[in-house]
């Protein structure tokens, strides 16, 4: 381990030095925002959630990368990550031109100057994106656009139908009633999962006064931590690698827990799982594609951002992952006509009920000014403590 830690230490020290040196010297690359595009480079490297850039190698029928490569001549390399924190670490190596990031990562990327301001005039497909997805805290800052929307969705509750009866409608099966499935409960292994507990507390403990699961003061965070510590006793394992969760549900080592639509889609019929958006509401994501402020292939990067919001590609990508598309026209290209309806695509009211991942900061996101909220660092150490 020493060598492992040392190696990463060396690499990270080096990259950290580079980043700090450059980062402070030229804060954000706003001045370098292009006004017109040049010729496409030969390659572009993408970083995203699993299933965000399929080139047919996992399933020959699922491929929206190859048409892009043919049309633009940009050869795509794609790497997937398991948590937003991992995404930030990877993106900061400088190896990636483009990142698809959730709200809990985008703010940090913008703040650290890792991504560049976008000239949306150079992204023709952007004008057709749902207006309620534009100019949000997680893709814009000070009126400047840093990311184009990819799609959005909710974190769902997955359960094995033969074990978890009756079919749950509330998150209580993984919180207050989790002891019924002791050792077989699973949860998402990231500090951001604290927000799931906060969503639950919003519904069940109104006296705590939680208005936004990402704006928790000390007391509210402590309540969420207590809930999660109680849950910890019944957790069989935490997951961040989605393959690990699939396998655990297939073998029955996990029977109930939070999940993504893409995981549900991947489960075999034999696993006999069901899923539900519980009554308390849920956390979720609204993801954005952003360009590295020091992208090696900025032209290909712009081309990708335009491509992924074109109806056909956006339909393929979001339907595969199991989320609502970013652009209304995508619904016409979905393989299943029900998809848009089941994800409530375009339903602004529904979309607003999902608590999209965002980075908790000291200035309370719910507008409170009388208290300091707990920031992501506090959440991180709280999460480590919960796991023990």
């Amino acid at each position, binding site marked *: 381990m020493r060598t492992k830690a040392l190696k990463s230490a060396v690499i990270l020290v080096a990259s950290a030095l580079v980043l700090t040196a450059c980062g402070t010297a030229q804060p954000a690359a706003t001045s370098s925002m292009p006004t017109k595009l040049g010729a496409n480079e030969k390659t572009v490297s993408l970083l995203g959630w699993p299933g965000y850039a399929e080139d047919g190698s996992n399933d020959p029928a699922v491929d929206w990368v190859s048409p892009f490569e043919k049309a633009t001549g940009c050869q795509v390399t794609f790497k997937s990550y398991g948590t937003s924190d991992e995404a930030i670490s990877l993106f*900061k190596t400088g190896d990636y031109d483009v990142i698809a990031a959730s709200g809990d990562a985008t703010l940090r990327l913008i703040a650290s100057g890792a991504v560049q301001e976008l000239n949306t005039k150079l992204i023709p497909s952007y004008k057709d994106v749902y207006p309620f997805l534009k100019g949000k805290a997680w893709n814009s800052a000070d009126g400047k656009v840093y990311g184009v929307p990819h799609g959005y969705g909710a974190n769902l509750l997955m359960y094995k139908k033969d074990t978890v009866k009756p079919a749950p409608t509330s998150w209580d099966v993984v919180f207050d009633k989790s002891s019924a499935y002791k050792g077989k409960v699973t949860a998402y292994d990231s500090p951001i999962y604290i927000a799931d507990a906060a969503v639950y507390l919003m519904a069940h403990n109104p006296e705590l006064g939680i208005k936004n699961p990402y704006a928790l003061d000390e007391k509210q965070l402590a309540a969420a931590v207590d809930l999660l510590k109680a849950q910890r006793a019944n957790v069989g394992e935490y997951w961040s690698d989605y393959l690990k969760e699939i*396998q655990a549900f297939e073998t029955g080592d996990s029977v109930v827990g939070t999940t993504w639509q893409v995981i549900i889609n991947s489960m075999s019929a034999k696993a006999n799982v069901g899923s539900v958006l519980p009554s308390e509401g849920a956390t979720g994501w609204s993801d954005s594609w952003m360009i590295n402020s020091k992208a090696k292939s900025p032209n290909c990067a712009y081309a990708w951002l335009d491509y992924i919001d074109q109806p056909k590609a956006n339909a393929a990508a979001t339907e595969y992952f199991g989320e609502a598309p970013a652009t209304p026209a995508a619904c016409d290209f979905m393989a299943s006509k029900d998809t848009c309806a089941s994800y409530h695509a375009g339903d602004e009211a529904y979309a607003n009920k999902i608590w999209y991942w965002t980075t908790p900061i000291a200035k309370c996101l719910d507008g409170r000014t009388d208290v300091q909220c707990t*920031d992501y660092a506090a959440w*991180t150490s709280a999460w480590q403590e919960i796991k023990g």
Partner: protein
Amino acid sequence: MAKKLGARSRPDTGLSSARLVSSYLFPRPKTRLALLLAAPVTWLVLIYIVALVALLVTAFWSVDSFTGEIHMTWSLDNLKQVFTQALYRTVTFRTVGIALLVTVIDLLVALPIAFFMAKIAKARSQRIMVILILMPLWASYLVKAYAWRSVLSHDGILQWLLQPFGLGTPGYGLAGIVITQAYIWLPYVILPIFAGLERVSNTLLEASSDLGAKSLTTIRLVVAPLLLPAIIAASIFSFSLTLGDYITVNIVGGPNQMLGNLVYTNVGAANNLPLASAIALVPVAIMFAYLALVRKTGALENL
């Protein structure tokens, strides 16, 4: 005549550059040594020492939790946090406990196997056994860990095997970590002990018996002291490798974390390299303490 023959039989290389270098170096043993050691020493200093120092230094820095930028200002906060917070104490004790358990189990399994290989097995079966023990090392660490994930599963072979006896798989958790780690590091424990036993010549055992010592006395007075350095070397392998593991924990450890996970989380997820460095110093310190302890017992003097 002999002289002539000698002169003729030597290839006539003339003054090739290789020859010039050789004849320059031949009477200069110190230069030879310096050239020989230059590369490895550079490697050692640059990659090893510098990295270790970087680790130590980084532990005193801090990080902006929002942007992930590292601030290079001196502070003892990280170390204070690691040494005072209950979380780190709990995880350290758990990690050391697992590492000790893995080491003890590996030694208990390895000693009879190594003894059989070194002192009982015929040359042929000894070779076969060495190959069998080395074989798992050809497989990737991840493959082995995932194999154990499937073995330990409630749907797995262990459950199927133990069910008739009213038992079941321990599932994912501490027991799973110990079993998997003990399996993965076993070759690293068997081989040094085997090598150590090979060095304990059979005539020493015969001499002891000849002088009136029964088998257990021979093991206690002759085999054990001679084998101690090998056993310690073996235990350093299993102990330190387990101490630093974070992959097996993720795969078969259920919800538990070890020190390695805290380091990994802080580097990979929380992007807090200074805190990760501070945590990484814990296993380093434990290993130093272990080596000091070993040195104090004098077990290394017979090496």
